[in-house]
Structures are given as C-alpha cells and as structure tokens.
C-alpha cells in the first residue's frame, strides 16, 4: 500500500499543467492488467484523471525517457520520480544527457513496489485483478478464486533493501525516504563464498537463459548511448543473436562494465528480464567492489561527483 494517494499525485501534476509550467506529464498508465502498468506521456488533466495510476506496480523508472521527451519541445515536462529514480535522474544530468531546466520533478515517496513474479508464485497464473486493502493484496484469479497475499511478501527484491531518498525534486510528496534494513549485498556475498566451479555453474545456468532480447539494456537508465556497441557494426561486438553461451557472458560482462560506477542500482534490469535472470547481481558486484576498494560511492547521489572509473588515487590497490 503506497503512503501517498493517487489523488495527491494528480493534484501535483494538475497544478503544473494549469499554471502552464509544464505542458505534459510523464507518468504511469493503466495497462491491460492491473500489474501491467505502462509509462505514458499525459497531455491533459482529463487524460490524467482517466488513465493515470499509482500503486504497487508503478516500478518503471522514467529518468531515461526524459532524454527523448525533453528534446521534443521547448516546454517543460513534468515527471514523477520515486526515490530510486531520482538517482538515475541525477546521473543522467551529470552525463549531460538532458537539461535540468526542461523538467519539473515531482518526487514521490514510495513504500516499495510489488514483484508480479512473487505474486504469481503464490497465486498462480490467470490473475484477473489485484486490489490493495489494508496491507494486503487481494488477487482475483481465474482458477483459484481470491488469494490474499501480505503486501510485504510481494515486495520486489530491490525494495527490500532500499535506503534511497529523493535526491532531486522540485516538489516532494511525502518525506521521500526509505529505510529498509536488508543487506543488498547478501546474495553477492553468498555467491562469492561458493567455489569457483559453483559460481561458474550458477552463472552458466543463469546467463544461458538469456535470449538477447536487450530488454535489460533498453530499460537501463545508464545505458543511454546514442548507438550501443552491441548494435554498432563499427564496434566489432555487434551481434544480433547469441551464437553460444559465451556471447551472453560477453554481452552481460561488458554491459555491466560499461555501467560500472554509473549504475545507481535501480534494479530495472532484473525487473524487466523476461527470463528472470538476476542481472542486478552483476551490477551489485561492481558496486560492492567499488565501495570496498575505492570508498563508498552511490552513483547519482550528488550532482557533479566523479565516477570511480574516471578517477584514481596513486595508492589504489593492485588488480
């Protein structure tokens, strides 16, 4: 159950449109299913009132959309950003990917998003409707009737260890802070403790599931290259489809390396992966190493900070 009501979000957006400060709003729109929420650019208050949704399935991070959206018009675009999304937003500003002046940021406090996979694990397939009530999700299924799930049990992995706060906003709804106390590196540590063979077996089985749909890249707010090396014939890395298991490794290692030090750990890659590969564990490995080797670093936390891979000290550890 979200701390902030849908009506408060609509009020904030409507205010910006009415005053003329922004002429469109980037928000979440009702999809075919309740859990299938789509990013959408709303052009009027009517549209917002009709189709805008805010709830436990609004996981999508809009930061990346702003690159194209801000280029479309000279008018400002309003955007809803959850605490985790604001880090991506800042990181993109650091990288000059769009102009801050062209965006009105409405920071939205978030109580964590639900992971539809967890719900399906309990309620099974055939979900027709999901309603939130008093900290529970009532899942209406075609085959098993109504299944009641504690919202906490449906929380996405990334939300279970979220300690983010809205680091940038023009208007803030709620306190904009999260203080979960789970260790986000627990799974990484668990893997580190395995033997080399076990780790290899783990990643081989995970990455072999990859179908190279590129969803992880396309959703990633750090992957905003004008032309991705994996699409660019000049790069020698271009490959339309994976030929064998090495190709996926290369793709995922290089993708993680390209976003190392820039990845804000927003978890979108794992959220969108149709094969359920825990891709965030690659990024978190880099984050964990960076923190351990070069000091605590949170990408996107502060404007103007220097990413660890474009920085050095003369006393750095040896490889």
């Amino acid at each position, binding site marked *: 159950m979200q701390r902030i009501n849908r009506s408060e979000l609509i009020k904030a957006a409507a205010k910006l449109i009415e005053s003329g400060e922004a002429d469109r709003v980037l928000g979440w729109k009702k999809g075919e299913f309740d859990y299938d929420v789509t990013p959408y650019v709303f052009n009027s208050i009517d549209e917002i009132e009709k189709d805008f949704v805010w709830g436990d399935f609004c996981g999508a991070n809009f930061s990346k959309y702003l690159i194209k959206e801000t280029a479309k018009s000279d008018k400002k675009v309003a955007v809803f950003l959850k605490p985790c999304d604001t880090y991506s937003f800042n990181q993109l500003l650091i990288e000059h990917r769009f102009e801050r002046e062209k965006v009105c940021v409405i920071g939205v406090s978030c109580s964590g998003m639900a992971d539809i996979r967890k719900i399906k694990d309990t309620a099974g397939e055939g979900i027709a409707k999901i309603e939130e009530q008093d900290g529970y999700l009532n899942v209406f299924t075609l085959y098993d009737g109504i299944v009641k799930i504690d919202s906490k049990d449906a929380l996405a992995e990334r939300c279970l260890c979220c300690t983010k706060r809205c680091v940038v906003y023009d208007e803030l709804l709620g306190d904009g802070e999260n203080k979960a106390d789970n260790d986000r590196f627990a799974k990484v540590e668990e*893997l580190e403790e395995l033997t080399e063979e076990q780790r290899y*077996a783990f990643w081989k089985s995970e990455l072999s599931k990859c179908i190279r749909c590129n969803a992880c890249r396309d959703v990633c707010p750090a992957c905003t290259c004008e032309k991705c090396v994996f699409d660019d014939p000049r790069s020698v890395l271009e490959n339309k489809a994976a030929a064998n298991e090495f190709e996926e490794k*290369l793709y995922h290692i290089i993708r993680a390396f390209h976003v190392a030090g820039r990845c804000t750990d927003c978890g979108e890659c794992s959220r969108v992966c149709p094969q359920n590969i825990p891709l965030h564990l690659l990024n978190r490995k880099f984050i964990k190493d960076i923190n351990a080797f070069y000091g605590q670093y949170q990408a996107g936390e502060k404007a103007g900070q220097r990413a660890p891979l474009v920085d050095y000290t003369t006393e750095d550890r040896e490889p």
Partner: protein
Amino acid sequence: MQIEEKKPLIAAFCCNWCSYAGADLAGNNRLNYPDNVKIIRVPCSCRVDPTFILRAFQRGADGVLICGCHPGDCHYTTGNYYTRRRMTLLFSMLEYLGIEKERTRVEWVSAAEGAKFAQTVNEFTAAVSALGENRRLEDLRCKE
C-alpha cells in the same frame, strides 16, 4: 617419452613506452621465455579495453597479460592509474563469474626490467599451464 601437451596460448598487451621496451630488453639480454606468448603493442596500458581481453579468451587464448609502466611512471602521467582500476574491477568480476583468476594478470614492467618481463611471462605461463585449456570463456565456433 613425454606426451606433448598443448601449450597454453597467452596474449600480452604491452605499453609502448615501458613494457614493450622491457620485452625488447629481455630479447637484447637473450632471456628465454616460452614462445606461446604473443605481444600486442598498445600506446598505453589504458588503451586495453576489457573487450580486447574477452575477445582473446573467446578466440582461444588461455591467459591474458597486461603490462604497463609502473604507477607514477606512466608516459601519459595517469593512464596506468585508470588501467589499475579498470582491471581490478574486471578481474574481480571474472572471478565472480567463476573464471579462474590466474588467467588474467596485470604486471608493471619498466623499460629497464627485461628480467622482470621474462620472469613474469615464465611464471604466468606456468600458472596458466597448470589450469589447462581455457574452456569456460572460449567461443566454440573459433576452434579449428
């Protein structure tokens, strides 16, 4: 009779100013090292992209060595500091994926350290030989 084993193939990236000169010095001093080490000259160790390393593994290399000037002595002043960070993270990631960490190595070799170059290559070859062929990162298509 000893059965001849396949010698491990090692690609070595050497920076033009220190390590490549160090390798030349090993030659000048006629210091022997295994012939399966092939050197690729780069202007600076910071030119070595992680994809070069992965590509070498993919195409059948069993080990990849990166040599640069000692930190603080880089011809371009800061290049090897970036190399150090990049390779630290990359190698740690490879290890995390279950790739033997002995297959990758960074060594700082100055233009005066011909002996160090030869020794590094000897040790590295021995370490990689002990692991055997690189199967985990090899691209099967490229095998003859």
